[in-house]
């Protein structure tokens, strides 16, 4: 399926962005 990388990319980017935001909240809370 040639379109599969697009699906993987979409879900991976969503996960990374949400994860990064959660980490940023944690880091800012500690400061």
């Amino acid at each position, binding site marked *: 399926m040639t379109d599969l990388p*697009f699906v993987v990319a*979409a879900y991976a980017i*969503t996960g990374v*962005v949400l994860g990064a*935001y959660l980490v940023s909240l944690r880091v800012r*809370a500690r400061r």
Partner: protein
Amino acid sequence: MTTTTFPRALSLRVRPILGLASAAAGAVALYLALVWAPPDAVQGDVQRVMYVHVPAAWLAYLAFLVVFLASIAWLWSRSAVADAVAVASAEIGVMFTGLAIVLGSIWAKPTWGVWWTWEPRLITTAIMFAMYVGYLLLRSLEADPERRATRAAVVGIVAVVNVPIVHLSVTWMNALHQLPTVLRPGPPAIDARMLTTLIVCVIAGTVLYAYLMAERVRLELGRGTAA
């Protein structure tokens, strides 16, 4: 005069529950989106991008509506909580708008043949994104908490006009972006299992928004810079 009346004790109990509920709802949504929902008859599996793209766009709408309401609340009450809710929701809304644009771009390439095109929905969304980035920049320009909150509130009230413009832009002009499928007059134009999956994804996203808001508002009030 402003007062901080954030119910901290309640927040302490609610945040872990929201975090757990968000993780559980996210797991269910992921299973439905990637396994249970059928592939699209025309687009195949790439249509599964919809289950993250649409909730991201919905959360952007919701977040900016909350900025609007919190901005009115600030001007009305001068409550530090209202200003904290406004900035928290604006920041989260900017993140979800950016995500909706990127995910839309990823979906556009295999279906439209391009990553980006200058069509009404995309242009209006880009303008909305820029305006709320501007909202956050404006906040960083003023050191005085009261003035910062008041200036931001004015922008927060005016900028909400973007939300109906973005949503209705596809009906006003000939557009490449598809018309509303769920939030439209008449019944949703979508397969029942796809609709169920989409609704679960939107609910999971909304729970996540509530959790992120609880964390971000607490952070803002904990800084002690809010008036």
